[in-house]
């Protein structure tokens, strides 16, 4: 099945390069969509036409301070805890409404309460009510887009740092990645990341840290921005061995 004209993304054994390009392309598209959303609002408030395409975005960028456009986009779409904040806020609002209604029911005499009102005040109904109302009041698509932007940003930076040979950035990204893996249920990788973090904090000497900084990626060609992960180079060996050595044996 092709997704955005790419094969190998939705396969049983996904193709890394296809998935990588797909994720980076989707990130670019999401950022552009966010920029266009804000540009559209600016355009509307200035009494101009709607901004829907990249060509129309060009005009907004030419006429306005695009540094403010970036700032506004980052402020609105990239705060790390925004999705969690929105979720908690809607949960609190629904809970508040439930408690107010329940108080109203409890103020009545037992004999005056209807069957629905008695059911409403049970713990079982409370859970169901909160879950349903929360879903209604939340903008799930927006929340998911926020989470997706966060995850893709860290991935993009990690990948970019790896190719450019910037282990300092990779270290910082791995710290955030560890928490993301925990949230996605990838417990084996969380354990692996934690092992390395604890080694780095408590077991390694500065000499070890210096060696690791300089050798966490390899550059088989010696060219700039051609750094690859150590195990990625091993996959290249596997590819070469599969194509040449083993096919002749």
């Amino acid at each position: 099945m092709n997704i955005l004209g790419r094969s190998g993304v939705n396969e049983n054994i996904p193709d890394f390069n296809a998935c990588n390009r797909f994720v980076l392309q989707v990130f670019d598209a999401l950022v552009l969509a966010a920029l266009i959303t804000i540009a559209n609002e600016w355009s509307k408030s200035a009494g101009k036409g709607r901004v829907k395409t990249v060509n129309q975005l060009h005009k907004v960028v030419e006429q306005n301070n695009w540094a403010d456009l970036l700032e506004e986009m980052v402020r609105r779409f990239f705060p790390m805890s925004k999705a969690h904040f929105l979720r908690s806020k809607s949960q609190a609002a629904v809970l508040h409404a439930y408690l107010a209604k329940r108080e109203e029911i409890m103020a009545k005499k037992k004999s005056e309460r209807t069957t629905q009102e008695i059911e409403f005040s049970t713990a079982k109904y409370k859970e169901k009510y909160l879950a349903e109302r929360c879903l209604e009041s939340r903008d799930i698509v927006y929340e998911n887009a926020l989470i997706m932007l966060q995850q893709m940003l860290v991935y993009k930076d990690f990948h970019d740092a790896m190719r450019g040979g910037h282990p300092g950035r990779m270290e910082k990204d791995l710290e955030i990645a560890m928490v993301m893996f925990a949230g996605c249920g990838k417990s084996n990788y969380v354990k692996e990341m934690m092992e390395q973090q604890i080694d780095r904090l408590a077991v390694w000497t500065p000499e070890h840290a210096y060696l690791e900084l300089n050798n966490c990626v390899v550059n088989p060609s010696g060219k700039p921005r051609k750094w690859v992960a150590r195990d990625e180079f091993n996959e290249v060996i596997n590819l070469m061995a599969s194509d040449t050595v083993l096919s002749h044996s």
Partner: protein
Amino acid sequence: MLNQLGIICSYDTSPRAMCKFGLSQVQEMQEKVAGGESFMLCWDNLVRTEKKEEETLYNRCELLSMTSGYVQFLHIPPPPLSATNRNSPNHWMVNAYKNIMNAMQSNQNRGIGLPKCLLEVKEPQLDTVIPFDLLSMDSIQKHQPLIVYGHTARILQRFCSRSLSVYQAPDGRHPVLPSVPDGPEYYTIPEVKSSLYILRIFDVDEITLDGTSRLVDLMMEELNITAEDLNNRHVDMVGNQLSNARVRSLQQLRLWDYSKHRMAFAGIKPGNFHVCLAFIDAIFRCNC
């Protein structure tokens, strides 16, 4: 390929030349290891089908499980000039580099790789590590906003590059495009070709503990060293998450073995490519 270049040679010549080149590389690698250059081992399983069928769960009996690997001699460049400044966040690198060089040159520490005492704390204070150390505030409060501005600015530049230079502030200046962080706290490796030596394909399946143990023995044979040579020494080992878990198990569980087989010399490091794969999988799991 030689034919396409207009070079004619007998069929045996090129394999013979390749074989000779391979043997000279092996010899060079063994000399480097014996000379005390510190190195890292990386391996991964290589699964092939006997026939040209797609690998599935149902034709596993026809799979050939082998292991490929390579040796990387560690690149130890001098620290950047900015690190000599006492106020630099990278000042620690100056002493670290000096100590590594001293250890490599001193006769007392001669041996395979680097001494364990130089690279690992003798009695690590593991209880001093608190959960908040694992995700530092620095990463969330400083690094994350910087990468947000850097990468979004790159996207804006890619799609609206001509329009960016048009806008001028009232004072006549153009806004400055934020860049992806590359300050002194973000160390960058100097460009250099890595010293890599590909090992032969081992006919060993590394997916069991015994297989991994046998693989390490075979790698040592290839490097012309013995397990005794690695007593109190340190060798980095890089693999995917499962390979690393097996090496950890070998270190912890095989207490009945001789100490030389417990792989105390192994410094386990995760492979970043597999972390990338896990990252993509995590993104797909959350959003698809």
